[in-house]
């Protein structure tokens, strides 16, 4: 992880630039409490530049300390610079010496900021800039003016008009929506990783770049996090959309990803690391038929061969044999074996379809052309062992023979061998002329979670 952080840092440096004329937040903070080496300090005297002075006697040294400042800096601020400003003067000819300002850092204690200066009758405003990036430390900053009297010509007196702490900062882009466009992730899927980014109103800044980082690479999906090239935002707010195809080597593994984004002030933010688990995609199916359909004496039995839908040439092997020209709800049977004739009492499905992969499928049927007049072929389905695993099942009878478009018998069949979609066909005849007609029946599976 350390390596990635370094890389990001380098990349940020590479992309760093300045745009003049764009505002950043500028907060002028004044003290709300002070203390000095004299017995008392009146904070109102040092909280504005109004020529009302707080005096401090150097005996032989002294200080005035602005202990608390108003205003807070947002926790997500990125500090551009920070200054300590002090306006003060000393009496003349009293050996005032070694005046300097300092600020308090929690880690390092008091740090000299600028100076030293000698005595002056004029009020000076002295500013010093320093690096401080810890927001909590800035919010609790203290600024002091120290001095000494280095002669014996009476006490040196320092008069302080005001302290102020000026903080220039920007805030990084914020994000409001992080996710992927899939509930389940399978190998080979093109997964969009999205985040919506925005800049706060009034900052006068714009979104600049975003960088996608993830660990879905490497020979065994084990190369660790790597960063894509930076891409530019075009509007504000805007989406960072990155589509990645999941390699099969990531099957069974947890993928982590996050997106970094910056603004025109080069302030960066990043999403938290998001994760998802990858499933190795398996597509497979099983078509079962009644056991008394086989074994077959010749190739036409079980010969449900087909190339494509357009060139299908399978042999007819499912027959409806009617004993009269007006008969309803006859089930199909196998050609050449009248003993396999099904009847209304058996109600045995002609197809039993299992989804043996791990992606849901749907099953539909159609005839290549309508069946002859006077003949109707219907179909319906049931779910075994119960309706919970088949999704939507066409339980009521629908007319398959009257049209040539696929009609679903089951949708969203789940991936378990213990769940089967049973498809039953029925034949009706009404006043038809005896004879034989051939139609092709197509079974089509659709991956319903595609």
């Amino acid at each position, binding site marked *: 992880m350390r390596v990635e952080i370094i890389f990001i840092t380098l990349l940020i440096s590479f992309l760093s630039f300045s745009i003049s004329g764009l505002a950043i937040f500028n907060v002028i903070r004044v003290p709300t409490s002070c203390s000095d080496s004299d017995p008392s300090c009146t904070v109102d005297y040092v909280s504005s530049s109004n020529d009302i002075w707080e005096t401090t006697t150097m005996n032989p040294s002294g200080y005035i300390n602005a202990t608390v400042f108003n205003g807070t800096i947002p926790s997500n601020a990125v500090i551009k610079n920070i200054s300590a400003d002090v306006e003060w003067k000393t009496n003349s000819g009293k050996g005032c010496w070694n005046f300097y300002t300092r600020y308090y850092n929690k880690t390092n204690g008091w740090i000299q900021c600028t100076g030293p200066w000698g005595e002056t009758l004029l009020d000076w405003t002295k500013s010093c800039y320093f690096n401080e990036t810890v927001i909590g430390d800035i919010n609790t900053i203290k600024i002091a003016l120290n001095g000494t009297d280095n002669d014996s010509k009476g006490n040196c007196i320092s008069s302080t008009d005001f302290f102020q702490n000026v903080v220039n900062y920007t805030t990084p882009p914020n994000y409001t929506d992080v996710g992927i466009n899939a509930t389940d992730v399978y190998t080979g899927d093109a997964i969009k990783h999205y985040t919506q980014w925005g800049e706060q109103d009034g900052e006068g800044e714009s979104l600049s770049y975003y960088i996608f980082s993830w660990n879905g690479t490497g020979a065994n999906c084990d190369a660790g996090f790597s960063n894509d090239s930076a891409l530019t935002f075009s509007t504000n707010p805007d989406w960072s959309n990155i589509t990645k195809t999941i390699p099969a080597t990531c099957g069974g593994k947890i993928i982590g990803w996050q997106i970094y984004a910056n603004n025109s002030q080069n302030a960066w933010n990043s999403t938290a690391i998001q994760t998802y688990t990858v499933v190795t995609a398996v*597509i497979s*199916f099983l078509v079962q038929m009644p056991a008394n359909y086989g074994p077959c004496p010749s190739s036409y039995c079980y010969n449900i061969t087909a190339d494509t839908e357009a060139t299908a040439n399978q042999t007819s092997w499912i027959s409806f044999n009617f004993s009269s020209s007006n008969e309803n709800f006859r089930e199909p049977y196998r050609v050449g074996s009248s003993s396999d004739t099904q009847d209304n009492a058996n109600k045995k499905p002609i197809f039993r379809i299992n989804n*043996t992969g791990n992606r849901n*499928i749907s099953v539909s049927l159609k005839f290549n052309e309508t069946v002859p007049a006077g003949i109707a072929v219907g179909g319906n389905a049931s779910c075994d062992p119960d309706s919970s695993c088949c999704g939507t099942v066409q339980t009521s009878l629908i007319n398959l023979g009257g049209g040539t478009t696929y009609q679903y018998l089951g949708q969203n069949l789940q991936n378990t061998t213990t769940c089967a979609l049973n498809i039953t066909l029925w034949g009706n005849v009404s006043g038809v002329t005896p004879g034989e007609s051939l139609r092709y029946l197509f079974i089509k599976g659709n991956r319903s979670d595609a």
Partner: protein
Amino acid sequence: MDFRPRHCIENKCVDSRAFSMLPPYPRNIKSATIENATEEYYLQPEFYPTFLSDGFRSYINNSGGFEGFSGYGTYPSSDGIVVRNGEEINKTFYFFASWYVRGYQGVRLVYNITGDGEFDVKINPDMFLLAPTYPWFEKNWSQKVIINVKVRNASKGFYSINVDAVAPPPEIEANWSNYKLYSSAGSFGVGEPFYRLTLEVQ
């Protein structure tokens, strides 16, 4: 020594004879990857996640009164890779007979490419005979397939090489049709290719 785990449901287990025609079960089967698995690994049904999660049930509680006559699938059924012009890559998948299939199945693999890029694609092998998986797994019930792709000229973007299963040509089927309960691939679709390789050309 047979290291194969037992697959059971409530004290009913898969009959070990179901695996009797397979190579000895390797002790370190989990070390095999999709790319490097050899026959002794990929002919074990345990190599396929859907057998462990569910498929073994077919060998314990089979469907009374029904027989599996057709069914096949791919593992993995989709893959993705980042490539550049001029680059040549190999990807591996396994084309197998589904659990509980009694008959032989003739398979020919064909492909198409979505997008306008120029690719050289080779599938090896592109035609084979899958053996039954029931009542026992016969050797060659699964076939390792390598798809070789060379990117000749393609602009940046996503492309898919879609591999589907169809019936072998009649002259081949004439030789195979005498195998037990022979059927051809192509009778059942899943609404998309049985194997899809997505190429992200950069």
